[in-house]
């Protein structure tokens, strides 16, 4: 039995061939890296590399198209569900998904999100919710929780001034056009496995023409939150989960 760790018979896992072998621009500890790996694994498992068209957001994941061996299109901030509508309606046999942050999906893109889901577009929407605008330097998001400090609410989010955290996933659950709405996380191995199942289901639903699937992934932004990655994971579990409880909200 070989003792060499990189011998083929000792290989128990490798990153998906769909991931580009490159350094990503995400901060160490960021949930994006993990979710990207999960998406690549699912597409490889499904054998859908040649039939997938991804729609990238504006936000930290704006360059996600550089990290996957998949055809991709960018979308203007918030417009990914509209772009995906055009892509999918015109190419119904392709797997089409959007990947969006909380500013993209729940602020500027609120109308596009709701209407694509209301029409029941056969797409999967992956929603990375870390309660902050990472790429632009850590400003408040609609999903920032009360008391949370960001660069545009340096004394903590104040409900009277800024409203309550916006629960888009709950809103989308009520639309007839959504077939599967779930909230997951990737902060430990068990949650990563659940997220993988959720994304697989979302992708399969879209190929079966069941309507819109929404997979929210409550995530960390240790850079924006000004914490270590380990502390950020802990803080998320203790402070974000009460506002954004995990689990399936809908599964038709």
């Amino acid at each position, binding site marked *: 039995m070989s003792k060499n760790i990189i011998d083929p018979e000792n290989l128990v896992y490798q990153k998906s061939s769909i991931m580009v072998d490159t350094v990503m621009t995400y901060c160490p500890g960021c949930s994006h890296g993990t979710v990207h790996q999960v998406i690549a694994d699912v597409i490889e498992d499904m054998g859908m590399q040649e039939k997938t068209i991804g729609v990238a957001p504006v936000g930290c994941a704006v360059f996600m*198209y550089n990290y996957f061996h998949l*055809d991709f299109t960018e979308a*203007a901030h918030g*417009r990914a569900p509209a*772009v995906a*509508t055009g892509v999918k309606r*015109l190419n119904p046999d392709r797997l089409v998904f959007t990947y969006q942050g909380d500013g993209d999906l729940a602020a500027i893109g609120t109308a596009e999100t709701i209407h694509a889901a209301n029409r029941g577009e056969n797409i999967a929407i992956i929603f990375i919710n870390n309660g902050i605008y990472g790429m632009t330097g850590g400003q408040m998001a609609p999903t920032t929780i009360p008391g949370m400090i960001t660069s545009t609410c340096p004394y903590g989010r104040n409900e009277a001034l800024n409203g309550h955290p916006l629960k888009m996933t709950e809103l989308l659950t009520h639309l007839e056009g959504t077939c599967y709405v779930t909230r997951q996380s990737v902060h430990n191995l068990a949650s990563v496995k659940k997220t993988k199942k959720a994304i697989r289901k979302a992708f399969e639903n879209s190929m079966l023409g069941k309507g819109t699937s929404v997979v929210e992934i409550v995530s960390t932004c240790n850079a924006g939150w000004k914490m270590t990655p380990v502390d950020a994971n802990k803080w998320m579990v203790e402070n974000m989960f009460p506002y954004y409880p995990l689990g399936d909200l809908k599964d038709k």
Partner: protein
Amino acid sequence: MKEIVLMKGNEAIAHASIRYGSDGYFGYPITPQSEIMETLMEQKPWETTGMVVLQAESEIASVQMVFGGAATGKKCLTSSSSPGVSLMQEGISYAVGADLPMLLVNVMRGGPGLGTIQPSQSDYFQAVKGGGHGDYNLIVLAPNSVQEMADFVGLGFDLSFKYRIPAMILTDGVIGQMMEKVVLPPFKPRRTDAEIATECPWAAVGKPASRSHNVICSLDMDPYRMEKKNEERQERFRLVEATEVRYEEFMCEDADYILVAFGSVARISLKSVELLREEGIKVGLLRPITLWPFPTNILAKYAEKVKSMLTVEMNAGQMIEDVRLSVKGKVPVFHYGRMGGVVPAPEEICVALKKQM
């Protein structure tokens, strides 16, 4: 045997888009162009050619749906009127930045703001000088008849796909709403996936093993690379300027004065030319058909011969700037215009010209 039918300009756009093998239309209702989408819905092309027709929730979404379709190499169009076209400027800038082909239609109405529902030509600047951010031009076609509304759908798509620059049909409520005889283009089948892969090898359709992944984007963090991208695009614009100018002249060869007008105002000005000629005044009409690329050279040529030019537009004076640039100060260029949705009568234009003589 040519089949001649009677229909509105807006309807002609709808019929022509189906016949030209368009893949998708995404739009939002707004007066005076809602007939475009209504006609498409009535025709049910999804049952015949497979064309997708979808009413979007806004003009912001419509143009982004077109962006999505275009990103996959499909022939897509949207239409709106002035206030809605303002909402599309974001999508237009992104489309140019991503070098995507598409057809846009603006049936202009009085503005600014919510304005009026009557016709105007006050979005010339927005269309020709770029209403969206960044360095770019659109290929802008100005029809003056229902026939040209039909014909310019095919021409717009052809030019757009040839140069990978969005094309816009810039028309107004007069042409959109009036009914005239038209010969519709023959049916052209929609392209197959294989044809799209050949014509648009850059499209994001799903990465086959034979190539690396295609990415449709307008972003680049490297300013030197971005400058090169912009320079390459500018070269395409120069090529279009050199080869795709279109215009029409009427009685300009011996003219002392030239009227310059586009779209419906050119039709009205034709009558003014007739009336003025009856009085012995040697006047001609130069009608730009492509507003971008602008027919600079022909105007420069006539600037050597005429005493003055009068641009007639339904706005406060927009195309006049391009006319002045073309003549380089050789002759005076005057403006006559109506705003707010008011359409000028031929006699007014005659009076305006006589004032400048």
